[in-house]
């Protein structure tokens, strides 16, 4: 899912960087003083969750959980996922530097869209509805992400069309996994700490 340096054309790189800068600015505006610790600690939690590997046949995939991140963080998912991708690029060598904008957009915009669309439904519904919308959000965010990755490749050159199709097909198992895990996580959070879906990250009553 990480696109590397050198693959994309300059207009795609610039458009991705500009849109990501806008998304980060919107996310930071919502991150008031009271919410900085919650955003930081949750961002770290999603970073650790993305290191969990799940076996798929002979291989394994790591979790992305951007749908869940959008459901909990809202627009703050943009800066939070940017930070995670920056740390991965600089310290692990995953992804690249010029593609950081495009990669952030591909992961974070689906997260925010899922959050905007489904968070009210999860907050209002019962446990069954929460499980359903959690699964839809988990799978939907990955589907959107693969579509965005495919679009970034195709806009950079027609030669990438087969690769773009392959990216989408290769991620169908990931969608299933993310749907199941997001559904279970949403059900648990809904039961244990429903405030997490009640709006922006809940803040200590002070």
């Amino acid at each position, binding site marked *: 899912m990480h696109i590397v340096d050198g693959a994309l054309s300059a207009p795609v790189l610039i458009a991705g960087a500009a849109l990501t800068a806008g998304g980060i600015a919107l996310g*930071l505006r919502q991150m008031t003083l009271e919410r900085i610790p919650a955003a*930081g*600690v949750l961002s770290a939690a999603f970073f650790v969750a993305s290191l969990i590997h799940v076996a798929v046949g002979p291989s394994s995939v790591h979790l992305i959980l951007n749908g869940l991140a959008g459901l909990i963080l809202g627009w703050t998912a943009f800066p939070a996922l940017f930070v995670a991708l920056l740390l991965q690029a600089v310290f*692990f060598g995953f992804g690249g530097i010029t593609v950081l904008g495009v990669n952030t957009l591909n992961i974070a915009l689906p997260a925010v869209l899922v959050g905007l669309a489904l968070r009210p439904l999860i907050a209002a519904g019962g446990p069954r509805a929460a499980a359903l919308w959690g699964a839809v959000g988990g799978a939907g965010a990955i589907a959107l992400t693969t579509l965005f990755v495919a679009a970034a490749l195709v806009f950079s050159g027609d*030669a990438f069309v087969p690769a773009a199709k392959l990216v989408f097909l290769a991620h169908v198992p990931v969608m299933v996994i993310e749907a199941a*895990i997001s559904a279970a996580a949403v059900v648990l959070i809904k039961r244990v700490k429903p405030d997490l879906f009640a709006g922006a990250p809940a803040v200590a009553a002070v």
Partner: protein
Amino acid sequence: MTLISTNPPALRPGLPGAAVARIDPRLRVCVALVFAVLMSQVDGFGALGLGLAAGLGLLLASGQPIGPVLRRMAAMDGFILFMLVLLPFTTPGVPLFSVWGHGASLEGLRDACDILLTANAVVLMVLVLPGTLEPVTLGHALGRLGVPLSLVNLLLFTVRYITVLEGEYQRMRQAMRARAFAARSDLHTLTSLGYLVGMMLVRAQERSERVLQAMKCRGFNGALPLIDAMRWRGADTLWALGFAGLLGAVIALEIAHVPGA
């Protein structure tokens, strides 16, 4: 401090002896950024080769263990392998050879090599220059370079709590193992991992509430003070000139290449 304990293994933060380890953090960030932008735009193999050679030379000079860095580079190559293998067959151009009736073109092969060289050169430079900084120092350097303070604060909080939550995750996995949980490819495994992730997020949220209260007690006003003295030294000016020379040479090779193409 390292990001996480085990997977993947962390690089050694800069060795005090090596000259590369004493380069100013701000200079490292800027050079990595400019180098990445430049490399992603050049096509000539001379320029690309020089960039990759510079990355390798810097790796050797840095005194970092070479194996882990190269392994990480190879891991990235694994990610993009399928795309590179497809490219010669999907790019129209002069036919070179064919596999099962699908012709591979010279242009496609050239594009694939271009991407491979660019990606590897940039990854090397990034892992050796900013990648050997302490994560906290990276945050401070970004702050000094004018990145919005709230984004830097978010990065510093994230870096601070990754290790803590990694420990939380390991404790919960251990509790699951103690109850005979074994990961398989079935719904039960996915549901259990989902509960694990959900619980991790709940605990993260509750921890952040305690953190906020503790920080308010200590007068937190929304900004973490960046307490370090990044001093520009004479050696940094030399390094900056050296990097400028390298970037200039890459540009010169690229300009010399285009008319002959």
